[in-house]
């Protein structure tokens, strides 16, 4: 690696004496069909080619961190649902993990299994819908997305059954989960997980070989390995660039060391790799789910002491491998029931750092799919 940071590339506009063109500045968003929420890109175009791109966000900013600092530790849990509203289960887990790390709470065995099951189900539905949204950005009129949403409904039904809500689950608690799984839940979950590979096959037949997707995604929005590391990219985007860094393997948080799964790696780091890595990760998640469902023990699901506790002055940084990347919570306690500092490290926020680098010199249509392949959720970017 070089000694200095990898600076953004510059795009040179041809400016011969005989040819003079003007740069077209377009403000894509916040109301635009494909900016995944209220996200804005200030794009400068040379014809159709992107010469400058600045991401602008904050339209959904509600100062989540400040709210958390004025409420109790438990009171922030439902707010974490609303960070990345696609993956409330993993958000809950990341926060619970940070608090457990800070306060030294233990999690019962069954609760750990439930957490793994919920997190992997979340990963399945997030990746499936992301691939759907990506194809929407590519211009498919919603067909793959609706197939993904069809499958996602089954997973959301499971979430609702366990937690009472489909998206804002608010299910994990410090030292466990809120309530035990209802009877019959595990059997239904097994059925959903067993049905999932059939959907994956259909999905892959529909998408992976399609010549238009191949030509649109391959060698577009390349994120080099060194830049990916230097810019703190995490999650599938990082692994698509060929870096073997999956927190489930590195940190082995929870009980991930008990499961047998593999980490798929890309080689080029383009949109197609990011897209394929997600499809492959879904297959691995199905594997984890099958193992977890087969071995889940009986027992308590939460630590009754963990309610309404008052942590000692301490600080902790807890992180998990969310579907979008490393989701971390940095907590500082000063001994009061409210956190002194509560900071979220949102993966989609930091993954946007390299958006400009990936889009420069590409067409405007590519900028849209590069953004789609990063997988951002504005609830998390803006907080």
């Amino acid at each position: 690696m070089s000694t200095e940071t990898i600076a953004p590339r510059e795009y040179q506009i041809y400016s011969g004496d005989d040819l003079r063109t003007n740069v077209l500045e377009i403000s894509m968003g916040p109301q635009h069909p494909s900016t995944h929420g209220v996200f804005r890109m200030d794009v400068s175009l040379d014809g159709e080619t992107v010469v400058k791109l600045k991401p602008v966000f904050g339209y959904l900013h509600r100062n989540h961190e400040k709210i958390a600092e004025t409420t109790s530790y438990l009171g922030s849990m439902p707010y974490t649902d609303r960070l990345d509203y696609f993956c409330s289960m993993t958000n809950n887990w990341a926060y619970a993990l940070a608090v457990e790390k800070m306060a030294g709470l233990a999690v019962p065995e069954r609760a750990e299994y439930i957490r793994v099951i919920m997190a992997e189900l979340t990963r399945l539905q997030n990746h499936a819908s992301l691939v759907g949204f990506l194809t929407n950005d590519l211009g498919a009129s919603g067909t793959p997305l609706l197939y993904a949403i069809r499958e996602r409904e089954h997973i959301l039904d499971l979430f609702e059954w366990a937690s009472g809500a489909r998206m804002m689950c608010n299910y994990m608690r410090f030292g466990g989960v809120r309530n035990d799984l209802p009877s019959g839940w595990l059997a239904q979950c097994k059925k959903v997980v067993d049905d999932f590979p059939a959907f994956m096959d259909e999905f892959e037949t529909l998408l992976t070989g399609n010549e238009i997707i191949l030509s649109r995604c391959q060698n577009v929005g390349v994120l080099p390995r060194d830049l990916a590391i230097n810019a703190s990219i995490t999650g599938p985007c990082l692994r698509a660039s060929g870096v073997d860094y999956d927190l489930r393997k590195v940190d082995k948080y929870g009980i991930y060391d008990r499961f047998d799964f593999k980490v798929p790696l890309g080689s080029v780091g383009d949109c197609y790799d990011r897209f394929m890595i997600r499809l492959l990760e879904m297959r691995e998640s199905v594997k984890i789910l099958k193992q977890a469902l087969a071995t889940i023990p009986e027992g308590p699901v939460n630590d009754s002491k963990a309610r309404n506790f008052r942590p000692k002055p301490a600080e902790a940084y807890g992180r998990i491998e969310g579907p979008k990347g490393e989701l971390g919570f940095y907590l500082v306690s000063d001994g009061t029931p409210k956190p002194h500092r509560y900071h979220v490290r949102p993966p989609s926020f930091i993954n946007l750092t390299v958006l400009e680098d990936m889009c420069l010199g590409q067409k405007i249509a590519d900028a849209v799919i590069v953004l789609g392949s990063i997988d951002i959720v504005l609830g998390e970017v803006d907080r």
Partner: protein
Amino acid sequence: MTPINPDQLIVQLTQWALSFLDSYPLVAVLVAILLSTVPLIAVFPGCFAITTWLERKGLARIQNRIGPNRTGPLGILQPAADGIKMLLKEDIVPKTSDRLAHFLAPVVLMVPAFTILSVLPFNRNMIPAAVDTGVILFFALGSVSTLAVFMAGWSSRNKYSLLGGMRAIAQMVSYELPLVLSGVTVIMMTGSLDTTKIVAQQQLSEWIQSSNAGLQCLGQIIGWNVFTPWGFAGFLIFFVASLAEINRCPFDLPEADSEIVAGHLTEYSGFKYALFFMSEYVSAFAINGLSTTLFLGGWSGPNIRPPWSDDPNALLIPGFVWFFAKMFALMLVMIWIRGTLPRLRVDHLMGFAWKFLLPLAIMNIFVGGFYYYAPRWHGIPVVGWPIGFLVMYLSYECIGRLNRGPKTAQRVYHYAS
């Protein structure tokens, strides 16, 4: 009194009506014009309404949805509801737009869309304008739509619209070439630009004249151009190019919603938008009608003589039924494609036209020439057919491979140890 011929009923009725005006030739001409244009203006918007309903229902089913089902049984009144909604919407014109061009664009798009319908033979003796150079007229008038789209894009004073307009020009001009060249093969074989002659050429008249009902029926089908190697390749090229010409998915770049919002349509609303929308569908019908005429035998179809008639030209099922059936079948394929495929990128689009379709279309002309002169055995093209097919297949493979290049390929993924 000739026996009733269901096929020619409408034509006969028209002639009967006009016979009253024999003494007023000027009025007769005017009435004749009205009688051939009014049905076009009445029928095709109806077809447009049915197609929007079909598209919404079909896409919905492809996507595992139900589709519109609240307006009437099966949502059949949805087009009417859409229409009412569209007409009641406020007509918004951007302040800085070029008002005249902004107003004219939908009109300029609509007029040629309807005009080109007039050279399509819907049935025997049923062609609104029997022009000797029908195909030329079709292409010439059809390309006016490029101008309309650019007018819309430029006059809106919206950057997305401008990009859409520029894309539209590049795309339509490029795809005109393979479109025309694949049609040229048919013109070459027929030796005429007259659409009625092109249809007649696709009918095996000896078989139809014979007394065997099976042969009569088969003779209406077997001669379609699409069953020859050059016709098949030409049909595919023509169909793909026509998708681009009418901005249908996967070539809907001028109105690519995920990239440039709605392209040239971004600043249109209300009635003007409805006109745009309808014109696009009418041009889709027109171009599908032309590809039906050129390659799918026009109005001819599996048809037999009515039992009461000895006239070799009398047919039980009117020809325009077959014509519309084929046209709608092509529309359904377009809907199916729309439900499946993502959009191309602008440079791929150009590459596809110039580096893939154009060479193939030129190759197809040579194959057509070879087929024409290749020796036949009892009129059956024993040499021309297989060799023509082989050449077209090989050139498809080769040009396809040359275009794909080493860059895009299925990849093998590895797992971290």
